[in-house]
């Protein structure tokens, strides 16, 4: 139970929020935007100097530090005066930036919480189709080229099929059919892998073939094939361990979306939204607001 609480992003968010609040309450005393005191701490000066050093690859001189401080004070004054005059209001860039920062802070907190095995397993179960393993098949095949035999190919195929059926499963096939770079033996492969070599049409046809019998002829983009399906594995849902990375990626992306929406939903409760349409059809509630 405790683990679950520790993992809850909202809790992290609130904790950080509370920490920030306390920090400003205690440390900022009297130097906030509305005060007339401007305080620059040793730590902040150190930060300015570090910023300078990062850009110029050397520490600032005394004169330069003074310049940095003066500039910072100017900036602070400008910001306070501008905000006091309301210049920040209705500024699209500032609004977007604030929103971005808030959402990002939320996302960072969210990303810091690793999903639990149970959550991932639940996601996998719910979204099984996304991860389903394709059916697999292993087979032997003999190729007959229409280029080489023309209209006789079909008859050749049927004759050969009859011979093969009589000969049994372990007949050597290396010298049967026409020479080809297509593999005669295909180990257990997904249908997509079969299609990569033999084409879609052939790959689909193998699905209907019985196991342990010579079948055919089956058509591919290359010609005709006689096929002995050795074994088949039905499509299945993989174990979490097999697809963990993909599941984790998808789960976290989805959780981020859901929780961001939930955060807005919660925050929205604090507000009364009034939408004034042309006809002044204010319903006094939230029905017109889209928080996400």
């Amino acid at each position, binding site marked *: 139970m405790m683990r679950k609480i520790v993992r809850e992003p909202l809790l992290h968010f609130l904790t950080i929020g509370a920490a920030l609040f306390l920090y400003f309450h205690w440390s900022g005393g009297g130097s906030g935007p509305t005060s007339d005191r401007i305080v620059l701490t040793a730590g902040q000066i150190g930060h300015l100097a570090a910023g300078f050093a990062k850009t110029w690859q050397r520490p600032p001189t005394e004169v330069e530090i003074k310049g940095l401080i003066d500039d910072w004070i100017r900036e602070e004054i400008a910001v306070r005066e501008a905000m006091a005059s309301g210049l920040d209001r209705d500024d699209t860039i500032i609004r977007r930036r604030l929103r971005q920062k808030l959402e990002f802070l939320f996302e960072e907190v969210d990303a810091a919480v690793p999903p639990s095995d149970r959550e991932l397993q639940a996601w996998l179960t719910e979204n099984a189709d996304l991860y389903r393993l394709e059916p697999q098949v292993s087979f032997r095949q003999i190729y007959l080229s229409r280029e080489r035999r023309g209209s006789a190919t079909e008859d050749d195929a049927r004759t050969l099929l009859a011979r093969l059926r009589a000969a049994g499963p372990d007949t050597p096939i290396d010298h049967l059919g026409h020479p080809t770079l297509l593999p005669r033996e295909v180990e257990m492969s997904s249908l997509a892998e079969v299609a990569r070599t033999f*084409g879609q049409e052939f790959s689909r046809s193998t699905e209907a073939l019985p196991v342990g019998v010579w079948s055919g002829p089956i058509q591919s983009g290359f010609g005709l094939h006689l096929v002995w399906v050795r074994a088949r594995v039905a499509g299945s849902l993989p174990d979490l361990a097999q697809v963990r990375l993909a599941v984790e990626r998808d789960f976290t992306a989805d959780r981020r979306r859901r929780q961001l929406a939930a955060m807005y939903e919660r925050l929205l409760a604090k507000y009364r939204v009034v939408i004034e349409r042309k006809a002044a059809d204010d319903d006094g509630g939230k029905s017109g607001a889209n928080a996400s």
Partner: protein
Amino acid sequence: MKVNRTIGLILAAVFLAGLAILSCTRPAAKQEPAAPLSAAPHQSVEEQEAAIPESPLKDAYFGDTHVHTSYSLDAYIGGARLTPDEAYQFAQGKEVVVNGLKHSIGRPLDWAAVSDHAEFIGEMYSTQVAGAPGGDNPMLEELRHLKTADEQRAWFGKYVVKNMRGENPSHPPFYAGPGTTKSAWQAVALAAVRDNYHPGKFTTLAGFEWSAAQNEGNMHRNVIFRDLTVPDMPFSALDSPNEEKLWAWMAEQEKMGSRLLAIPHNSNGSKGLMFAPLDKAGRPLSAEYARLRSHYERLIEMMQIKGNSEVHRKFWPADEFADFENGDSVGTFSGRTFKKENFVRWAVTKGLAYEAKLGENPYRLGFIGGTDNHNGLPGDVAENDYIGSHGPADGTLKERREGEIDGWIKAKESNPGSLAGVWATRNTRAAIWDALAARETFVTSGPRIKPRFFGGATLGATQDPVELVKQGYARGVSMGGTLKALERAPTFTVHAQKDPDGANLDRIQIIKGWVNAKGEPQERIFDVAWSGNRKPNAKGKLPALGHTVDLKKGTYANTIGAPELIGSFTDPSFDPKQPALYYVRVIEIPTPRWTTYDAVRNNLPRLKGVPATVQERAWTSPIWYTATK
């Protein structure tokens, strides 16, 4: 306000910590970092690679060496929002949303290298990663919200184009420093390469594009690494627009343990710069220049969205297949007038003259493919569901029919680009990259045609493709290889297998190149194997195959052509003292061009000024005959 600043500090701290974890600079990068957050025990990448069986006769693996994502500034401006990670996901078959439409590759690729423009990846990091340094710059705020194509053009022109085409290109004013470039390279580009590598199934190669374009002439190169032993940031045209400086940087990387190569592209639009007779200092090419170029630039991208660079019908009127995706309007934008000396066939042949003079061939180029897709869609080459490649510039039916891809080409004259093929023993980074470095490569204009090509003094003709390949590897050299001095003509053996889901094959050709006493490129094209019972006429010309295309329905039938072709060739004019090169071109039967499919699907008249059908094709890397011991 102070709250904001403090949050900023906290975010910055979180970020720096994150970056410190992610940064995989060279010494640490020897071993791939384990996938983050995963508690489940699993094999290391090395263990996975070691478990993949090797196929001695090699397999063809199809990929893309050239694709741009939201980390390329021009692509981002054009609306690309797919990241490198998502581009690799698309290549593996995952559905994505592009220009507001769901889109899927259909057939996954075997490998890919995302090649974002190195110049501005740092700026793109600031733009896209919330809280990143420089992200609050108002110019980037504008960038994030550009809406119309006009706004996009104006912004791009103002901050980028003038700058890049000047003498000393530099970062735009919204650059937040090299830290952002490193973050983009390590935390985005390399992380995507690392996370999407599945040995045996899908290979990712780390890469970037060095995008020098002085005076609008295209000198771009894609740089591709063998593994994750990589520098902590890429080299861009802002570091230097001089290719010799790029090679010097590559040499430094080699000393530090990296293995890398560069692939130039779009020589068709290079304004004579790609194969210029003078170096950047205005001196004739030196032996040292030729040596460096042949060492670092082992391949050239034959064809892409902005046209086919093999040949152009205007300069090769005798080549009946030279009229293919010529992208004529490339030659009318920005003064990029076409000339023969910009085309690949000319250049690889001219290389023989340099070799005779300098002892080194600067243009010993194998052939490779790529799309240059700017929507983040590697290998999206199917003609029959092409949705454009450059954001809104060709993202709607109307723009594809009437618009232009800014400053480069009329949209209707562009094409979906080409695929890169390699012959490798297995699908791992090392095997794929080694095939690239050995030039055992081929290109297709989209279909998954598999061409084989061997040369050797003792090869024999055969009708058995398995025998052909076994003999080829045992007693000859494959595409990309070199034959030393021989007393009599070598035998070349060829085989091509059609795309299992595509069109039949018309013919296999061998193209021979050599130079005359004045060092001028000469050539001859031989038909080596063809479908049906056609007979060459008295002049040796094979009759055309005809076609089965129904232009109204946008269909074709494989009732003509052959699913595979096999043959052998001995050069009747072989001269043991004459250096030469030979490469293979496989031609498909005619099929509808993407513009025809687009028109049929939308019930519109076919476009004028572009062919209704194309004969898709594959090209192999050359085999060189040096005439020397």
